[in-house]
């Protein structure tokens, strides 16, 4: 953890002071909250707004909230939302065109007043996902202005995970569960019989500024050891793991593997995996005109490689079968993403497994192809 030389221990009151300090600085504070029997990301004002005492049970196609029996504030894994919905919103207006003087078109960009967000409880896998979207959407030559304006203003309060979910596999993707970089402040929840507080460390100048305003006590070696134990316990409880092999070569060498037919039998091509994935960034542009033919609007919304329209070009869709769509998604996420952006597109958050209505497990699909391939080599 590359702390800015500042760390302290705060109580729950101190955490409330943090939320207040962020709000005072004009941030719209967003964090985990319970809604519709899940932990989603929404506006947050009070510590009591957090999912106090809740955890989640996660498996392929399965998510249930459970009471923990303690008062942990962050005792759960990631839910259906990711920070993508704030930094790379589901819908963005692009431009409007109006007919003037009957023969001229006047184009105007749609005003995009990006809020200044402060995210509270950003997991290591999510920081990795944001770093990936930064590479994709803030590349110097092709920056997306909507993403950039939100991202550059965002304040990130990260969190070392104290609970691994049933579909988590960040450890095997080398993205977590410990936070290493890319945050303004990082919290570790220290929950013991007699005390409940947070080790808090700064990762940026603004983070250090805010930290200096919070009531806390200097962190001791014991606090840091306790925080490391929290993370190591989480690491040893990962619900899933990605096979440790050269996945890009494995997948690209097996583009005609029978497993693609097998997964196509089960896959609904409903696009849920791509919507919940914190790195999937694809969008489509929708153009409409009004009844009078005076105004036209162009807007952007999330789209998915699981939809026929997504690969529609002159003559039809390139990927008509579920087999080709699933293969496109998985080979891009785990293999060609590396060629394109230098890292895997997967951070091991497990959302695509949990929120797939039929519980297709990307780690299992890799394992199946790997297993058959190694068997193939033996015979």
């Amino acid at each position, binding site marked *: 953890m590359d702390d800015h030389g500042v760390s302290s221990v705060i109580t729950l009151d101190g955490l409330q002071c943090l939320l207040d300090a962020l709000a005072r600085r004009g941030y719209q504070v967003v964090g985990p909250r319970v809604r519709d029997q899940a932990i989603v990301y929404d506006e947050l004002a009070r510590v009591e707004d957090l999912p106090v005492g809740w955890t989640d049970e996660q498996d392929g196609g399965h998510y249930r909230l459970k009471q923990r029996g303690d008062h942990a504030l962050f005792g759960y894994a990631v839910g*259906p939302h990711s920070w993508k919905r704030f930094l790379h919103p*589901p819908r963005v207006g692009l431009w409007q065109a109006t007919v003037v003087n009957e023969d001229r078109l006047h184009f105007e960009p749609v005003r995009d007043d990006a809020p200044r967000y402060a995210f509270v409880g950003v997991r290591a896998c999510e920081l990795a996902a944001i770093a990936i979207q930064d590479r994709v959407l803030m590349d110097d030559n092709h920056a997306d202005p909507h993403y950039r304006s939100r991202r550059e203003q965002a304040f990130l309060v990260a969190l070392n995970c104290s609970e691994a979910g049933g579909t988590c596999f960040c450890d095997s993707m080398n993205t977590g569960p410990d936070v290493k970089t890319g945050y303004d402040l990082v919290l570790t929840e220290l929950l013991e019989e007699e005390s409940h507080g947070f080790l808090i460390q700064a990762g940026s100048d603004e983070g250090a500024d805010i930290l200096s305003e919070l009531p806390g006590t200097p962190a001791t070696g014991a606090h840091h050891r306790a925080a490391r134990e929290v993370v190591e316990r989480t690491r040893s409880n990962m619900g899933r793991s990605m096979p440790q092999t050269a996945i890009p070569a494995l997948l690209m060498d097996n583009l005609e593997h029978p497993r693609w037919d097998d997964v196509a039998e089960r896959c609904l091509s*409903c696009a849920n995996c791509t919507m919940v994935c914190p790195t999937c960034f694809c969008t489509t542009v929708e153009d*409409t005109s009004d009844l009078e033919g005076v105004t036209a609007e162009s807007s952007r919304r999330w789209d*998915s490689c699981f939809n026929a329209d997504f690969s529609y070009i002159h003559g039809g869709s390139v990927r008509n079968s579920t087999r080709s769509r699933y293969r496109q998604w998985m080979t891009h996420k785990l293999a060609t993403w590396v060629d394109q952006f230098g890292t895997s597109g997967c951070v091991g958050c497990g959302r695509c497994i949990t929120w797939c209505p*039929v519980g297709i497990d990307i780690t299992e699909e890799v394992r199946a192809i790997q297993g058959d391939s190694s068997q193939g080599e033996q015979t």
Partner: protein
Amino acid sequence: MPATDHKPRLGVWKFASCDGCQLSLLDCEDELLRVADAVEIAYFPEATRSHIRGTYDLSLVEGSITTAHDAERIQEVRRRSRTLVTIGACATAGGIQALRNFADIDDFLTAVYAHPEYIETLSTSTPISDHVAVDFELRGCPISKTQLLEVVSAFLRGRRPVTPAHSVCLDCKLKGNVCVTVAHGTPCLGPVTHSGCDALCPSYNRGCYGCYGPKENPNAAALSERLDQLGMNPSERLRFYRTFNAWADPFREESERHES
């Protein structure tokens, strides 16, 4: 009426249906006057008393074909229409009344009517596209008025309407809804159902009823396995697929798999 001569002529036609989709047009309220400005509403029995006369630039057809008379009438509508758009599940898939297609019509007639001999009906309820060429099919039971305005606006400019064929799931995710199947164990047709309602039922923590019919490339068999795990027995699964879009091929084939 020289002032209206150059406006496109709109006809709204009714076949076997509940009128709900036509009413979506009247429900437009704020936009209705703009619609009336943009087109000449030349035939609309639900709203006006004019008669069938001449040709129509845009015909909106509601309802399915259930009588020999209607099977002839739709040919006449097609002949008089430059562009023919079906609106709603009846016109597009045969509607709830297509349940008759799975049974013997005479059994229904004797069960329902004191004098079945007065009833002249076909043994099936079929979509408009089984009878004439259709230029565009707008889904829904009922249709969304927003989508109807989009289709009319698109027709007026000669562009493709924005009515995507993806799953209801995608709309849930755009809205930030929590998945009712994954998080609550609620059976939901969203993964196989066509977008258009803005994920109405799941937004209120109900499973999707499939009012907009099958999405493109649906995998109903895979969803049925999940419905089975959620505790739906075969007859419940059959009924799940057999509602307003029962006769749409993917739903029909899947419901037939669950017949005992």
